[in-house]
């Protein structure tokens, strides 16, 4: 119990020290870019092709960009949900009920 309290105190102190260190090294956010810069996307590959497509949609047709953003967010979220569900089921934990019943 005493060791656990020590670990909790260490964790809390680290939790406060680390962001201070990061902030000392960090830089402020830069200016807003209103046109997506597609000329730098010169590599071939599916990832760059996807980035190119999204940047083009952002520049040319914002509605298409908005629809893709919303749909892809929902699809990726659902995919990750199912994937994590599959992985968590293999841990052996009961993930369908909880013992604690209180308000």
């Amino acid at each position: 119990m005493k060791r656990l309290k020590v670990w909790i105190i260490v964790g809390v102190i680290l939790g406060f020290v680390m962001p201070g260190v990061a902030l000392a090294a960090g830089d402020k956010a830069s200016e807003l870019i209103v046109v997506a810069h597609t000329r730098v996307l010169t590599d071939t590959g599916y990832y760059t092709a996807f980035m190119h497509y999204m940047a083009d949609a952002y520049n040319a047709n914002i509605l298409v960009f908005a629809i893709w953003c919303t749909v892809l967010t929902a699809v990726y979220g659902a995919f990750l949900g199912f994937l994590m569900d599959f992985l968590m089921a293999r841990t052996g934990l009961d993930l369908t009920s909880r013992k604690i019943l209180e308000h």
Partner: protein
Amino acid sequence: MDWLFMYMPIAGIKIFWPGLVLIGFSVGTIGGFFGMGGAWMVTPGLNILGFPMAFAIGTDMAHIAGKSMISTMRHAKFGNVDYRLGFSMLVGTRIGIECGAQMIMYLERLGNVGSVVRWTYVIFLALIAWMVFYDYFKARRKAKTGQVGEYGATGITWYVALHKVKIPPMIHFKVAGFTCSLWLPLGVSFVTGALAGFLGIGGGLLRMPALVYLIGCPTHIAVGTDLFEVMLSGLYGAFTYSLKGRIEIVAVFVMLTGAAIGAQIGTVATKYAKGYGIRVAFGIAVVCCMFSVILKEFKFDAIAAVVILGTIGAICLYIIKIMFQGAAQELREKKKAEASLFKA
């Protein structure tokens, strides 16, 4: 070390992607545990990474929608989501947010309201924190004097009086386990939505305690139901922000990847945490958020960011500890039960 930086095609800059994964993980953990989006936690983190602030809110909104989807799917398996209540609250919240946003735009045309909004936010956060800790100490006093109900001692029970209001239509919320007038969740969600729209926040910080203290939802179901609502309103927010060109979609995917793991930890941790444990931790998070807003008001931005990020770090570690300790205990008990069955 170039591989540690990922190019963002819309913002046109390279970002340290492990930082994005860490932000997603932390917010996923805390959001899954408390049942809120967590936008107030993401912005300082993105600022430190050098993410353009113009894209921060929209990117965060989309990430929160996806993260809430993952958490909702897990909470639904635990039986923590009341869809009927969630949809009722969503209607009220959406109308309320639009009214609140219109009010703030009207006040902005009259003069500078930034400071008024921040101090209003501080007052509401202080009220919420007071409510949470008063509820906890009242419940403890009742438990000590033996005033214990079916599900343990409860502190604040304002919802009991509100449930007695019989304005039709009356609706039964099966998962949450109570019957009340439909106007109660609609009204409460309208008020929290209006406040959220006025203050320019998502509203999870306001909605979660409102679900518990005013509507009478058990804590775990309030967490799951609120996440369901955040998911739907987050998707709507993601669409509107991307129409304004304010989303960096690659950053959304990277943060979601971290959030997928964090959301599982936060959500499963609720299984091993008592309702009041969740509420007290929520109260502490609210107090730290309040201090950071006060510090920002007095232009101590760096210290405000340290307070927020320190709070996130500490609460994350606390939730991870609950989850792993609880899971280890459950697996130990399961092994013991299997061993004794085998012996028999």
